[in-house]
């Protein structure tokens, strides 16, 4: 499989402070990778940078998506190329409703519109689509709202920031279902599913999705990569401190 996302020697600054140092990462087509690491290690910075949020300034290195150098492309262009993001703490936008964003994403596409309607019911979000975007939602509702938008966006490469944090077990199962639907095998190719990068702090989401690889991020660097369940076992056993000792 060719790499869908390839990051080479990436350094990123936020407000003049370098937070990511020389990151190298490749995610092939059809693979789901997870990113683990303690708070403040740079996980969110990495996915916000790949998405193109302007606060995250690339000072060195390049980002390639589907063979194209996207380092200098803006957010809109990246989203339209097929990159999508689920934020952990999305901003509240007064007056803008979830249904308006969903309508924008499904505009002029009858099939997608129908899918959005079905998803709304399945995600138990029908009653919340007329509320201001992200206003007054519980942790689980924010995850579902974000996932719903991602599902309507239909990205080829989806990034998620802690979909399993702050949600109860019942919500977690529903979120797992939604994520699996997002990465579902594409109808045109029976062996290929969509690709993605999922940040998880707890690893709970690994019980609900089948990830291919895990990366550990420590102090702005990817320090280790491997089988997701093995990596999680090691972290559970030795903590991230154990990973620090293992670092080259």
């Amino acid at each position, binding site marked *: 499989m060719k790499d869908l996302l390839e990051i080479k020697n990436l350094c990123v600054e936020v407000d003049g402070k370098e937070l990511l140092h020389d990151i190298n990462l490749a995610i092939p087509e059809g693979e789901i990778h997870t990113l683990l690491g303690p708070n403040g290690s740079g996980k969110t910075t990495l996915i916000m940078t790949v*998405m*193109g*949020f*302007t606060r995250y300034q690339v000072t060195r290195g390049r980002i390639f998506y589907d063979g194209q150098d996207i380092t200098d492309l*803006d*957010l*809109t262009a990246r*989203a*339209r190329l097929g990159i*999508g*993001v689920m*934020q952990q703490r*999305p*901003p509240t*936008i*007064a*007056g*803008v*409703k979830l249904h*308006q*964003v969903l309508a*924008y*994403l499904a505009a002029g596409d009858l099939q997608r519109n129908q899918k959005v309607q079905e998803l709304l019911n399945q995600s138990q979000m029908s009653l919340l689509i007329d509320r*201001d975007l992200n206003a007054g939602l519980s942790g689980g509702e924010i995850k579902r709202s974000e996932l719903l*938008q991602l599902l309507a*966006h239909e990205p080829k490469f989806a990034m998620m920031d802690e979909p399993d944090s702050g949600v109860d077990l019942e919500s977690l199962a529903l979120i797992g279902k939604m994520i699996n639907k997002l990465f579902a095998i594409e109808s045109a190719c029976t062996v290929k599913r969509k690709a993605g990068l999922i940040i998880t702090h707890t690893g709970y989401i690994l019980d609900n999705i089948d990830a291919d690889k895990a990366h550990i991020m420590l102090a702005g660097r990817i320090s280790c990569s491997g089988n997701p369940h093995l990596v999680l076992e090691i972290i559970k056993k030795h903590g991230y401190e154990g990973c620090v000792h293992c670092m080259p």
Partner: protein
Amino acid sequence: MPQLFTIDQLREEDAVELANVGVLTDRNRRSGTFLLRDVLPLCCYSSADGMELLSIDAALQRYDWLREKYFWKAVRPDLDEVTLQCHSESIPRGFFIRVRKNVKIAVPTQAGLFVAHSNVTQNVHNIVILEDDSELKLISGCLTLRGVSTGSHFAVSEMYLGRNAKLTNTMLHRWGPKVRVRPRSGTIVGAGGQYMSNYVSLQPAKSIESNALTWLNGSGASAKYLTIILGSDGATIDTGGEVYLNADDTSAELVHRGVCTGGHIFQKGLLVGNARCRAHVDCAGMVLDTKNSGFIESIPGLRGMHPEARMSHEASIGKIAPEQVEYLQARGMEEREAISMIIRGFLDTNIAGLGPELDARIAEIAELAGHGETR
């Protein structure tokens, strides 16, 4: 006397411009029409049973009681230079509407007041009377035609709502860049009456100063004012108003929404609680561009004159947060599309009863502001 003819005989280019302020040639979508071109009434008719629509001069000739009970009774002739000027007209220009008792007009009635030539001064005097238990939706579209940049529009409106009467008064304005606009109004609402005013200024004049006075005199009467202003470089827009809550269980709400892309916007409003009542003022401004010292100034006012007057206000001014724009861009929107959607949301004040005309104008403001094209 009106010269004409019906609105469908308007020149096509004029009809297109009037449609932009909610004045339509489709007779099925309007229950009556009054058109004033410069200082001459063009047409004036009602197609609804139980509603009279006449030019004000014709109505004054027909009904002696109009002059005795209503003409200059809700607005003082000596209030200011605007009222003095309108009062000095030997033949007043404007419309008279009366909706009979128990008659509910479902289809909106419209008035189109337009300036077709440069340097014309329109002095307008309108009277609307809703008898007990009647209802009316009035759409007034005021504008200067394409190519007209100078002129004045002075208007006095007197509105009288009887017991349980309901008036929705929607005004859409689109003016040339050097026009002076001075609306003055007085509205008296009886017991259980509901007055709703929606004012949208799409393309602001050089200066607009409005001063709407409302007296809620009957128990349970209510008034809601929604004012939506798109300010632009070189324009000064001062929208104010006072509501006097004079009877028990009255309520009033003033909602201002201003989007500044230059120029000066003043959002004012004074609520006076003289009885057991509820009242709220909500002023919110969004500053997109402050070229040439543009600003928004919000001055919500409350005066409690009764121990059971429950009154509150809120005011906020801010810019669009970049993270909000980028959040929507991450869904594939262009930056201007994202800004338009946010402005549209900011202007959506959830006041029930806004018709499609107003919705379309709000969407247009959001689109214009999103593009940075307001002139």
